[in-house]
């Protein structure tokens, strides 16, 4: 266990969708940042560092975006760094900021995640770029897509666990139904199992409706040292953990298991001094419907994935609601913003500040944000605890 010193004083995001309003990533960053600063009750000149998460320079044709945003946001003079670990970038930025504040060297840091994953380039170009997220000399050159790699991994997992299309449909429907109560969500939809089955086959067994969308958007946090926090009800960061797995799916002893996530969760739980069963809400990295179930198993949130899914353990009124936001599948997936938004959602849930229809009447004690890059090649999880001041 460590002695947690970091609290989430500000948490905000823009809507995730495909922007058609002429705005760009700098506008989204400004909106999310301004809301987070207002919630935190700090002045901009108190923010000593900016941790920016953005997966790719190609999406918005902007190298070195952290320095640019520092000027845009009025943070000139602050220390800035850009954090990148593929789909995990946002959570990596949260963890770097946490470590900086935990060290006692700074009191307030801004974490901003953003990407123009939808409107900057055509979808096929974005998907081609994502193909180079994997070893470019093997999977990249070969033309393997993220969907194909996830589909292969899922086939191994589902065969071991006895899962199939029914379970993929359940996750798809639950996440997108949750998204219907989230005004910031990209895909608030209610597709029945037939509609899911009728959507185009991308990489068997994954159909288009089993996939998360490419989205635009930004999310922002203000993290503060507990001694400097202006708000006493801000949730604490009680555990962080990160780990990697082998970059080649075929080199893993179990291609269906998210071993990096399991390791990251163990490290976060050890830091927090809790077991996974203590988690009362989780934002989980559901790049694909099956990936959510692989994550749930790796995180130790369920011993019996099939049974817990069927009995509603992960539904909004269940033992551990998963992806109340809608997750990547429902809320959307602007790469760099994902991990930041997951932590923002967890923090707002713990403070009772989330969207009314999705907010549990009694906030849980612990909430989890789970993010990864690659086919869970890089994993990072963060555990937040409700403030004793609530």
């Amino acid at each position, binding site marked *: 266990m460590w002695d947690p010193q970091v609290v989430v004083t500000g948490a905000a995001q823009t809507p995730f969708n495909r922007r058609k309003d*002429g705005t760009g990533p700098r506008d989204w960053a400004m909106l999310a940042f301004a809301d987070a600063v207002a919630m935190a009750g700090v002045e901009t000149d108190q923010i000593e560092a900016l941790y920016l998460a953005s997966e790719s320079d190609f999406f918005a*044709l902007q190298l070195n975006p952290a320095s640019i945003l520092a000027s845009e946001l009025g943070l000139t003079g602050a220390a800035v760094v850009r954090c990148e670990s593929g789909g995990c970038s946002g959570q990596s930025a949260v963890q770097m900021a946490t470590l900086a504040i935990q060290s006692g060297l700074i009191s307030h840091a801004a974490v901003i995640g953003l990407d123009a994953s939808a409107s900057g380039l055509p979808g096929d170009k974005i998907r081609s770029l994502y193909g180079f997220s994997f*070893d*470019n*000399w*093997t*999977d990249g*050159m*070969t*033309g*393997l*897509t993220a*969907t*194909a*790699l996830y*589909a*292969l991994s899922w*086939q*191994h997992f589902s065969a071991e666990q006895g899962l199939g299309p029914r379970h993929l449909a359940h996750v798809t429907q639950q996440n997108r139904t949750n998204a219907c109560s989230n005004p910031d969500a990209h895909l608030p939809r209610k597709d029945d199992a037939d509609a899911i089955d009728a959507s*185009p*086959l*991308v*990489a*068997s*067994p*994954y159909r288009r409706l089993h996939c998360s969308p490419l989205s635009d958007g930004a999310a922002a946090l203000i993290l503060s040292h507990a001694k400097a926090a202006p708000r006493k009800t801000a949730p604490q960061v009680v555990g962080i953990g990160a780990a990697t797995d*082998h970059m*080649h*799916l*075929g*080199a*893993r002893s179990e*291609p269906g298991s998210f071993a990096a996530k399991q390791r990251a969760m163990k490290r976060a739980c050890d830091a927090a001094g809790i077991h996974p069963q203590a988690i009362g809400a989780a934002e989980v990295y559901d790049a694909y419907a099956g990936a959510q179930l692989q994550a749930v198993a790796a995180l130790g949130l369920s011993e019996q994935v099939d049974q817990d899914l069927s009995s509603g353990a992960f539904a909004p009124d269940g033992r551990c609601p998963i992806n109340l936001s809608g997750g990547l599948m429902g809320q959307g997936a602007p790469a760099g913003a994902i991990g930041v938004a997951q932590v923002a959602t967890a923090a707002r849930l713990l403070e009772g500040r989330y969207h009314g229809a999705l907010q549990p009447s009694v906030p849980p004690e612990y909430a989890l944000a789970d993010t990864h890059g690659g086919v869970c090649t890089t994993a990072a999880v963060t555990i937040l605890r409700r403030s004793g001041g609530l």
Partner: protein
Amino acid sequence: MTTVHLPLEYDLKAGWLSPFVEGLTQGRAVARVCAACGRVSFPPLRTCTCGSAEGEWVILSGRATVITRTSGLDGDFALAQFDGADGLTTVALQSTATVAQSPLVLQASDPPRLVLGLEDTA
């Protein structure tokens, strides 16, 4: 809206992986055998899963069996077991390739891609 065209033409160097990459262009499966534990990796691992970075190149037959397969709009891909390799390999499947006709064999490909197809019996 402002449209920017940025054609990019990369000249990538394979470095230590050159024997593997050149092998793909000729349809030869060049793998790495670990000097410490004997594990044969394909694609080759610079640092073996046992932690050793010492190894030698070895040429496999190129024959492989499909273990799991995915098909759809993105193409046909598989996790395959190459004869003589430890662990699996992610590959593309030629459109003519079918699992029923396994074992399949590594195809020559330029640019260098891991592609399995039917054995040329001619």
